[in-house]
């Protein structure tokens, strides 16, 4: 903090600058692998590694022309939107009961819903695999992947929406009720608009998590491919530069989705504010 500067001792200044260097190293540690992956995707070297022998877009062209990859992309997107719908519905309704009563043991419910995020994915994968193949005798398919992934994504939506509901001023609803709004209109005009940004953020998070999910999916998708499963198979059977290009695109897509998860809810709030101001000017 700025005002601290003058009173910092010599030792304090040394601690401060060495920590600054340390912080720099941490960001280097975090981003070198990611940047390198993107860099290699443009590398003309056909082994997809050092030395960088020139720059090319041909790996990207190969990715776009590959029917297996197009197939995997289609599966990824179709699993992704289903996971998003399931987790938004389940997460939001559960958040309502959790925050507004209706759950007998809220603390226990919260812990139970945190478990799927906390425990290793392999346990979810194995147990669902056994349920589907040994008990229900259902063929493994993208639908089983939707079920498995939604166990992992729903808690994120739940925690996000619950946090928003906890900071919610219930007097707004009481006021609306006094002014004659029925339960449906209170939900439509007061509650949904206020929690909508967190639902949107939750939906985008759920989609991103699904888009990248590997550990659970790998056990229960059978012979189908999502993009991460396809990439994994390629890595196992020898690294090709084409995989680096695909990997770079997947990486960029999740970063873009993450950016959306931050930007979209904020934009929604801004737009709504501008709109409501025009309709009903605030009292001076």
């Amino acid at each position, binding site marked *: *903090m*700025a005002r601290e500067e003058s009173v910092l001792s010599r*030792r304090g200044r040394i601690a*401060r600058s060495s*920590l*600054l260097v*340390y*912080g720099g190293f*941490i960001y280097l*540690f*975090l981003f*070198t*692998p*990611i940047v*390198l*992956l993107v860099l290699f995707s443009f590398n003309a070297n056909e*082994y997809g*590694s*050092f*030395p960088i022998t020139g720059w090319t877009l041909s790996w990207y062209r190969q990715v776009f022309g590959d029917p297996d990859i197009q197939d995997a992309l289609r599966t990824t997107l179709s699993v992704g939107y289903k996971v998003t719908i399931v987790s938004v519905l*389940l*997460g939001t*309704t559960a958040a*309502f009961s959790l925050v507004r009563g*209706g759950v007998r043991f809220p*603390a226990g*419910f919260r*812990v*139970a*819903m945190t*478990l799927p995020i906390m*425990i*290793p994915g*392999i*346990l*979810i994968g*194995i*147990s*669902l*695999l*056994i*349920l589907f193949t*040994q008990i229900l005798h259902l063929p493994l398919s993208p639908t089983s992947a939707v079920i*498995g992934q939604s*166990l992992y994504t*729903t808690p994120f939506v739940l925690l996000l929406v619950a946090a928003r509901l906890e900071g919610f001023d219930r007097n707004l609803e009481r006021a609306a009720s006094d002014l004659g709004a029925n339960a449906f209109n209170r939900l439509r005009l007061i509650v949904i608009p206020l929690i909508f940004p967190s639902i949107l953020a939750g939906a985008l998070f759920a989609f*991103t998590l699904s888009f*990248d999910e*590997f*550990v659970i999916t790998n056990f229960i998708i059978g012979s189908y491919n999502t993009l*991460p499963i396809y*990439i994994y198979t390629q*890595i196992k059977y020898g*690294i090709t530069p084409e995989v680096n290009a695909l*990997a770079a695109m*997947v*990486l960029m897509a*999740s*970063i873009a989705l*993450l950016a959306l998860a931050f930007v979209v809810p904020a934009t929604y709030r801004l737009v709504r504010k501008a709109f409501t101001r025009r309709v009903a000017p605030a009292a001076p």
Partner: protein
Amino acid sequence: MVPTAVYFGLFFFVPFGLIVCFSFWTDSNYTVVHDWTLDNYRYFLENAVYWHTMIATLWVAVAATAITLGVAFPFSYWLSRYVRPGLQKPLLVLVIVPFWTSYLLRVYSWLNILGDEGLVNTALKKAGIIDQPMSLLYHRWTVILVLVYLYFPFAALTLYSSIDRFDWDQLRAAMDLGASPTTALRKILLPQIRAGITTAVIFVLIPILGEYLAPQLVGGIEGVMTGNQIDSFQQGALYARASALSLIVAGFIVLLLILFRKSLASKEAYGA
């Protein structure tokens, strides 16, 4: 809440109950025979490779957790204390970015760094320090390094949100009263961020106990963890064996949760 509870009951808790049952049944000719027995557990006890791997897994998990927290603490401390408040949020978001990108790709990217033709070996060769590439992949420590990379964002985030609520005047007061900086940190700061430390430990240690991808891709034979053994039983359709080994991992997790239940019950643990 009812639909959600039913859904999670059906697809999360019931399957877990199935694992418990299967672990006491036996595999025979690609099917599972429903005779109650302790055979699977006896098998793991009698074959040293399984409990050796289990000990190695625990060791890797504890070492990786300790290193992750050790690396994350000075970072979070720096971010919270020395970085301008306006810059803290953006820098924190930068830490989260890798956390939200593909887990598979974050493991895979280390092959580009540690491989024979990777960043480190190429740089050292260029500098004339080595002629032959060093073997950096497929060691136990490689697995630990990659695990630290994977879980660093979570530890940093949790520790930051807990350090950020600390009142630095208390530290200054302690030092005014004659405490050395390290004593002040240990006696004033650490006790107040204990809940954050516990949360970080739980959320790093527990998932690592079931890791199978990182050890498989960068650990090779030397890096095998219990998760890989579960995976290979599953691939051989030995579901009873896979269940028993999974249940042992789950047992460790339950033990940890009981050990840390007090700090988990407090709301502060979810400060992040």
